[in-house]
Structures are given as structure tokens and as C-alpha cells.
């Protein structure tokens, strides 16, 4: 080895276009949605009814819920609340698994993560359309 001339390009560079911005956009949008609505959704659908606070008990009767969800605006709202955070979670879980040492199966991890989010999103649409 002689002078430390700096070779270019970088030895590890893959080059070419990356589609990470697409997944990151979904992650990011999902993160925003999750930050704004997830606490209240979890509170309402997972805890409020169970503890039966005030008006909550009545709100969780089948008729009230079915009536509420049949509203197309609410359907759209719920679809957004579920699908985007799913991609948000998929992205995070994918990266965290790499962080804790599963870097060897990076690509399969990505495929499984986003595919799961996609399947659940389709399922969500199906479920909402049925109500």
C-alpha cells in the first residue's frame, strides 16, 4: 500500500435507483396517522368499552357500531387508520430485525414485512366493504 489516494466509487456501492423512498413515504405517512389516532383508537376499542365508562357501554352495542361503520366517510377513515400504520409497522419491524442481527436475510425480511402489510390492507378493504 502506498499513498492513501481515495478510490471512487465506493467499494460497497450497489448503484442504481432505490425504491426505499416509496416504503419510507408509507412508513412516514403511517407514522403520522398512528401518532394522531392510535392512542384514542386503542383507548376506545380496547379499553373504554371494557371498563364501561359513561356513554361507552352504549356506544359499543352492535347496532351503534354497525351503524357508525356503515358511514362511507368513517369507512374511508378507518381504512386510512389501519392500512398506513400497517406499512409503518412493517417498515419499523423490518429495520429493527436487521438492527438486532438479522442483516443476513435483509431482502426476505423486507418482502415478508411489506407483503404482510399489503395482505392485511386488502383484508381491511374487504372487511369494510362488507359492513
Amino acid at each position, binding site marked *: 500500500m502506498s*499513498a492513501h*489516494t*481515495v478510490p471512487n466509487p465506493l467499494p460497497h456501492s450497489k448503484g442504481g435507483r432505490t425504491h426505499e423512498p416509496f416504503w419510507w413515504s408509507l412508513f412516514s405517512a403511517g407514522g403520522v396517522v398512528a401518532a394522531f389516532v392510535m392512542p384514542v383508537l386503542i383507548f376506545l376499542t380496547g379499553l373504554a368499552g371494557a371498563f364501561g365508562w359513561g356513554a361507552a357501554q352504549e356506544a359499543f352495542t352492535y347496532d351503534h357500531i354497525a351503524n357508525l361503520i356503515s358511514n362511507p366517510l368513517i369507512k374511508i377513515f378507518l381504512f386510512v387508520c389501519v392500512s398506513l400504520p400497517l406499512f409503518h409497522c412493517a417498515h419499523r419491524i423490518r429495520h429493527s430485525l436487521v438492527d438486532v442481527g438479522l442483516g443476513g436475510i435483509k431482502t426476505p425480511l423486507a418482502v415478508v414485512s411489506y407483503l404482510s402489510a399489503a395482505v392485511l390492507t386488502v383484508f381491511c378493504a374487504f372487511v369494510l366493504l362488507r359492513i
Partner: protein
Amino acid sequence: MAEYETLEADILVVGGGGAGLRAAIACAEIDPSLSVAVISKVYPMRSHTVAAEGGTAAVIKSNDSLEDHAYDTVSGSDWLADQDAVWAFVKEAPEELIQMEHWGCPWSREPDGSVAVRPFGGMKTERTWFAADKTGFHMLHALFQTSLKYDNVTRYDEWFVTKLLVEDGRCQGVAALELRTGKLRAILGKAVILCTGGAGRIFPFTTNGSIKTGDGMALAYRAGVALKDMEFVQYHPTGLPGTGILITEAARGEGGIMVNKHGDRYLQHYDLGKPLDVHDPNHPQLRQMELGPRDRLSQAFVKEMEKGNTIEGPYGDFIYLDVRHLGEKKINKKIPFVRELAKNYAGIDPVHETIPVRPVVHYMMGGVHTDIETATSLPGLFAIGECACVSINGANRLGSNSLTELLVFGARGGKNAAEFASENAISDKRALEAQARDEGERIVRTFILKQGGTERISTIRDQMTKAMEAGAGIYRTESSLKETWDTLMRLRERFEKIALDDRSNVYNTDLTTALELDFMLDVAASVAFSALERKESRGSHQRTDYPDRDDAKYLNHTLVYRTEAGPRVEYQDVVITKWPPAERTYGKK
């Protein structure tokens, strides 16, 4: 791998600081077919240019003129600067700073987007360009990053040059130690530019980083080139006690004041004018009080200390720099680094408290003797920046001229070296390689393999720095200098008995520390010797036994040569073109 591998480039730049990088870029731009090697003992961004704070001078505003810049520089130098060099310097300065702007230096700006300037010591007009108070840092990184775009520049980072290779009367390469492997190699070049910075580390209290050990000065000195004006050592009036960390002159340029233990603005008693209230719109006044030149301010400190007006601290006496009246907003905007440094290293917040400061060694006005084209007396060898002496700084450098100097003469030197390299070839490769091999053997013999040494590097180094401070500091006398000289000679002998702890190859910093001390002992001796010979007081060289300036005898440059019998001094007349020697007046415009 062969034991001694020879490397080659057309031009070798020794040192990767501001001057070296500017020179390398100049070479690279002049002729893309030229190969340029930048050889530095540290990665370029570690070079000490990084620590310059306040700014860099060039005429850009309409209220200013080249004549004023030149006059301020000449009078600041106590008429020891060469006026032809000063004129070239001030003339080329604006374009160089604009070039820096085009290379991305983040200069502080006026609201209209033009570059802003601030006042500095010893100036008639405010002309200091600045990037907040990290001007050197921004310039160095802009230069370094810009240098990356030239494919004909090859860097040898962390290669320590130990010797210049001279053959057929020309400098044709260097012997350099690759720190990573511990191998010593010849790097041959048709021209060699020294840009290794100053030698503040020969003193105990200095703003200079650990790397500033006068390597280039010693390399040239040993190759028979004269060192010029070495007796002129600049003390910066405001360093933090203990660490010597620099508190920039910009703090005073923005309106900071100096007060002694009684709260008195003592500078008014030293022919530096009368103070104005800090809230007066005319404060700070140019070329007066706190904006006097550095030599005068540092000398005033010593006088105050003698009067008992300074404050005693664990690291010697100090006085106060007060910037509180500037307010938090201005401090944060204009001198944020001052606040950061004072907070971290003195434990005080300048917004609310006064900063303890004392004079610390800052800059070597002297250096490798070059002409106005940066050429030394050894063909093929050029020198630029603090390691060189052109001279534009004379007996006292004006604050904010040094960054400009490394650009102006960096560009000049690069151009001239490129020209020289295209007209000369390497004459005898074998002989040069043999020299490098000898040098490698010398290092192995004197340091690595030597047994029975008894002296520690740090002991000798500490005694050297103490001797310099004691005898060759702000005020000197015949006897103090003689004592320093004698100590240095004894230390040189003791250095022969040095013992390294580390005899390995990879990153042997014990070895490089020894090599640096070897260089410093030479440089320190040249300072003491030159000071002893100059029997007058001028600028930063103050002899209490000869308190007056003596233009009849000493309006000339000291040239000191290294010989077997000890240093030999010659003198060379100062070039006077337009400004005949006059009294240096501050405090009156």
C-alpha cells in the same frame, strides 16, 4: 514489499494546512497533467489552520484602500516587513478571498448578501473577513474539501517528513516515515513546497496545537537554507491561562475591553490612546486601546504585572477580557466560539463574567527565508505560510494577515513550484534513494535500536520550553538570552542520550515525538541566537538592555544559517519602497 519503496510526484507539498492545500490546488489547476503529492503528518483537516478564529484581511469595501492595508501592515511590522512583498500581498488578497468564497467558505454576510468585515487590531479601517469566529476552521475545510475534486492531487496522510533530499544542488524529494507501517520511504519530486506551519510548541504557553513543532523550518535549516527573523515571536494578548487556548482578537474587534485587577482599562497608560465608554457609538476605536497591535498589548501586560495590577492565578498572572456589555445576542452571533471555549475551559460564561486572559505564544513571524516568489535559496525548494518568512510580517504580524498570507503566497508558491517542476527533472534517482536509505538507517540507529539511553523526551522538552519562556519571552536581555542559549546547548547534548519507550513500527508516536523534539531544539536555538544578535527593540523583540529601535544598524532581516560550528548570522536589508521608517503611533489617527 521492498524495504524502501520509492514514490514520485511532480510536486511535493509538505504540510496539509491552509497554505499546503492552497498551493496544491494552485498546482493542480495550472496543469492537470502535473501530479501533486500532499504529504502531511496529520490528516489535513487536523492542521492548525483549523484553530484560527477571528478572520482574514483583504480590502473589499469602498471606504478602504490597498495603501491603507499596506500601511497598517508595514507600521504594524515596525518597518521590518519587505514593502514589495507587502504590496503584492495586499494586491492579491481580495481576489484570493473571493476565490475562497467561490469555493464555499461560509463568510458572514451583510443583509444585502455581500461579505461582512469587522475591525481588528492595528487597522485604520475594518477589513477583516470572517466566518463567525471560526474563520480558520471554515477556510481549512473549504480548502480541503475543494482539494478532493482534483484527481491529480494525491494525499499522503500521516506521513512524517524527516529530511529533504538534495542532489545536484536542487531539492528533489523528501524522506518520509509512513506512520501506519513505520516504514521510511523516499518520495521524489521536481519541486518541494514546505508548508508545515509554525513552532509555537517551543514555548510552554501557546495557542498552538501539539503538531506545531517547526518541522519545516528545521528541515530547511538542516538543508542549509537560512531561517529569517526568528527572534520575532508573537504573543497573543488574550489566551486562557493554563491551556493557552486562544480567545480571538475578534472579541476586542467587536468591542471587548481589557481591564486590570482594579477594573482600570490600563491600556490607556501605554500610548494606546484614551478609552471611550463601551456604549459610545465610536467604541471600539480603530488602531487604539484594545485595537492596538498584539506586541504592544502583550508588552503592556508585563508592565501591569510588574506594577502588581494583574490577578494571581494557579497558572501565573492574568488580567480580564470583558465582553459582557456586548450582550448575549451579539456574543452568540459574532463570537460564539469564545463563549464555548470560555465556558468549557475556564468555567465562566462571558455573557455574565469577565474572561481571565494572559499573553500566550501565538505565531512565528520568522521562518524559512524566501523571496517574494516563495523560493528559497535552495533551487526546487519553496516555503509558504507560517513556516516561511517572505516577509510581510516583519517584527509583528497584524491580526488577520496570516490566513490571507497563506492564500496569497500559497497560490504564488503553487504556481512557481509548478513552473519549476515543468522545467526540471529528477536528476539522479539512485543517489536520492541512497540518501533516503541512509536517513532510514539513521533513524533506526539513533532511536529504535539505540541502547543505554537515559533521557526522557518530555523532560528535555519541558526544560526547553521553560528556558524559552524564561529567557526569550516578551522581554529579553543579553544575559537571559545567553542563559537560554546555554540551556539549549546542554539539552542538545542530552538529547543524544534519549531513550525511547517504544521500539515498534506501527504508529510509533514515541518516535515522532522524539523527531519533533529534535526539530524543535534546532528551531529554539535559532530563535535564541537571532534574538541575542539583535541588539535593539523592535516590535515583538524587546530587549530591556537595548530599549530603542535602531534603524541605523538593524533595519534589516536576520538570516541565521546552521553550520557545524554553530549558527552563523547574516543580515539582509529590508525592502523599503513607499513608507520610510517612522514612529509607530497608535492612539492617534
